């Protein structure tokens, strides 16, 4: 009976809802778009500028946009969430078969990437950055995605790894390959140190303590000047060599030994393959761990901690192992970061980094390794891409600078993404073991964990 009225064309309701949206937009835009303070050469310094036309344009855009949404979006009946209407390609991504087919293709592309014609220094640097974040995402996925423990201070382990390499090489003269495992072990130890106080915490409280932990590490690095160099950071960290061959123009260097012409790009390509190898290692280890008893226990912990205890699972050890192993991969990545930059300072390890890594995991999907790859490409590559959008000048005029708006556009993209796929790009879960056929578990069934 009421379905008839719902499906019929409701022009007045549409206009009403669009008008409400426009009024809200007007109130929001009034101070942000409508008013501008400009510095003048005058005595007063600042004066207000009114931009009524821009304000009107903004409101008109909202009105038209809301009308379009009303026209083309399906009528809401409360139950229907966007996630329920998963599109065909989203379903295709989620199926384990596609994942198995796509992963090797991505790997082949990643290996061929430095030799593609457009791969200059800038592109390779972005590639290295993306792969570093993929690796960090996989590490954090253990803690957040599998064990369901919200960690807002993951960057602390990245910092521990970076400073471990910087300090161990400076004080003991250890090389990169010596420091890499040590950095992982030290970061894992810090993971356990963080794990102990937060064992009993869940949800918001856990998030606050992990956030504080990340800040504590950063502030210690900033203030312990005699040891960490404070805000000046540590510089002249030795760069990794290719099995003992340094990347320089000397006769004993990499280029001379292999009879190549020296190019600074060789070192970048080497770093690219180094992080690719580290990330591949992370991929296999975390993928394997998920299918082992320990990984199943992490997921069980996310689903129901009390049931875990009733089955004789030591939840303390399980949580600590999730923190430690997640932190270990952060440590590896940090050690690579120090080697790549040859310089570390607390600036690189602020909360924004933790938030970015967490966003990559959440956007990618809590338990999908492939999802993390896509979301890291979208997040890191996307931010870089927004620097390049010079064509937008054609639309918005020559004064428009896309790089200034990139975080705004990026935030908008994230909001849209979360509306469209609230549980991430790959929201389904692939079982760790199966009897007859490997079916994915839909997001609606999966508990998100309260800790």
């Amino acid at each position: 009976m009421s379905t008839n009225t719902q499906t019929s064309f409701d022009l007045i309701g549409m206009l009403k809802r669009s008008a409400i949206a426009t009024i809200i937009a007007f109130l929001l835009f009034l101070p942000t778009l409508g008013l501008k303070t400009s510095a003048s050469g005058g005595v007063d310094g600042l004066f207000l500028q009114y931009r009524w036309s821009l304000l009107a344009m903004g409101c008109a855009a909202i009105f038209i946009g809301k009308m379009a949404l009303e026209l083309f979006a399906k009528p809401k009946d409360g139950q229907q969430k966007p996630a329920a209407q998963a599109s065909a390609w989203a379903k295709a991504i989620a199926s384990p078969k596609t994942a198995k087919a796509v992963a090797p293709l991505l790997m082949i592309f990643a290996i061929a990437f430095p030799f593609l014609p457009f791969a200059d220094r800038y592109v390779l640097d972005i590639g290295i950055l993306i792969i570093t974040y993929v690796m960090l995402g996989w590490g954090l996925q253990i803690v957040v995605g599998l064990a369901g423990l919200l960690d807002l201070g993951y960057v602390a382990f990245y910092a521990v790894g970076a400073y471990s390499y910087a300090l161990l090489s400076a004080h003991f003269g250890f090389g990169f390959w010596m420091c890499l495992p040590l950095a992982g072990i030290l970061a894992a130890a810090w993971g356990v140190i963080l794990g102990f106080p937060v064992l009993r915490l869940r949800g918001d409280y856990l998030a606050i303590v992990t956030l504080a932990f990340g800040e504590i590490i950063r502030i210690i690095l900033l203030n312990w000047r005699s040891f960490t160099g404070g805000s000046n950071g540590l510089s002249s960290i030795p760069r990794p060599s290719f099995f003992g061959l340094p990347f320089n123009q000397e006769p004993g260097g990499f280029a001379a030994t292999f009879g190549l012409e020296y190019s600074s790009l060789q070192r970048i390509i080497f770093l690219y393959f180094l992080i690719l190898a580290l990330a591949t290692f992370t991929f296999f280890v975390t993928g394997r761990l998920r299918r082992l008893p320990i990984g199943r226990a992490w997921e069980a912990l996310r689903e129901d901690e009390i049931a875990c205890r009733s089955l004789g699972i030591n939840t303390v050890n399980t949580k600590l192992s999730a923190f430690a192993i997640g932190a270990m991969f952060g440590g590896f990545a940090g050690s690579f970061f120090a080697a790549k930059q040859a310089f570390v300072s607390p600036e690189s390890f602020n909360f924004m980094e933790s938030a970015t890594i967490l966003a990559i995991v959440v956007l990618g999907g809590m338990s999908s390794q492939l999802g993390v790859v896509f979301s890291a490409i979208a997040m890191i590559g996307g931010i870089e891409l927004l620097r390049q959008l010079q064509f937008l000048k054609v639309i918005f005029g020559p004064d428009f600078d896309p790089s200034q708006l990139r975080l705004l556009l990026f935030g908008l993209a994230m909001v849209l993404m979360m509306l469209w796929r609230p549980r991430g790009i790959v929201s389904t879960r692939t079982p760790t073991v199966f009897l007859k056929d490997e079916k994915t578990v839909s997001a609606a069934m999966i508990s998100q964990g309260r800790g």
Partner: protein
Amino acid sequence: MSQPLLSVNQLTMRFGGLTAVDAVSFDVYRNHITAVIGPNGAGKTTAFNCITGFYKPTEGQIVLTHTDDKEFKLEEMEDFRISQEAKVARTFQNIRLFGGMTVLENLMIAQHNRLMKASLYTLAGIFNTPSYQRAQLAAKAKAELWMDRIGITDRADDPAAALPYGDQRRLEIARAMCTDPVLLCLDEPAAGLNPKESEELNALLRSIRDNDNVGILLIEHDMSVVMEISDHVIVLDYGRKISDGTATEVRNDPAVIKAYLGVVED
């Protein structure tokens, strides 16, 4: 009778000024179904939580004896150790399955401790050594056996949350049995079941009692389940034990009729 599997002696649990369980003593035997009944608030679940370690009792002793005469003082043990070492398994009044994980995964997690040892605490597992593979296959076979016994093998790869309610109840029992318990504690296993599901549950509990060499301790409101399958009934009221005996004895006990059955048959 032989030596009791579980011996509860003067168990007392106070929450501030409230005495939820007051000096209750009873025994549970192997290959027996022991039911704890009583009106709402009688202290059944509290007693249960003390036995499974989710509460620490204020006073009293809870001793579990294995067949090799090894004794476990449950009141001193942490909850997960009670399951891991003393081999006491439990289910929950409001089902606590791992809903986002498949039926098979639920049964595999129950075998966590054995598989952890087999995977040398993950080291051997990473390299997928033959001994770990064998342990994994054995665990899978055990899970299959239990899926067969509760008749949900064809749903092995479906998430546990997608199962019908009655199957979820029985899956929770199967999951508890996969930990190889000597004592199976069931908190209102028949709650919310329809008569047919209730019948299936009775059959499962009888089969466990007769074949798996465990003692079953259950809390139940559903009188048809209690009277039909229990070998031994304990009645609690206001935290005290008011009756103890076979189903028939308890049914005819005036104290019980006064406190509980009289109200029910009203």
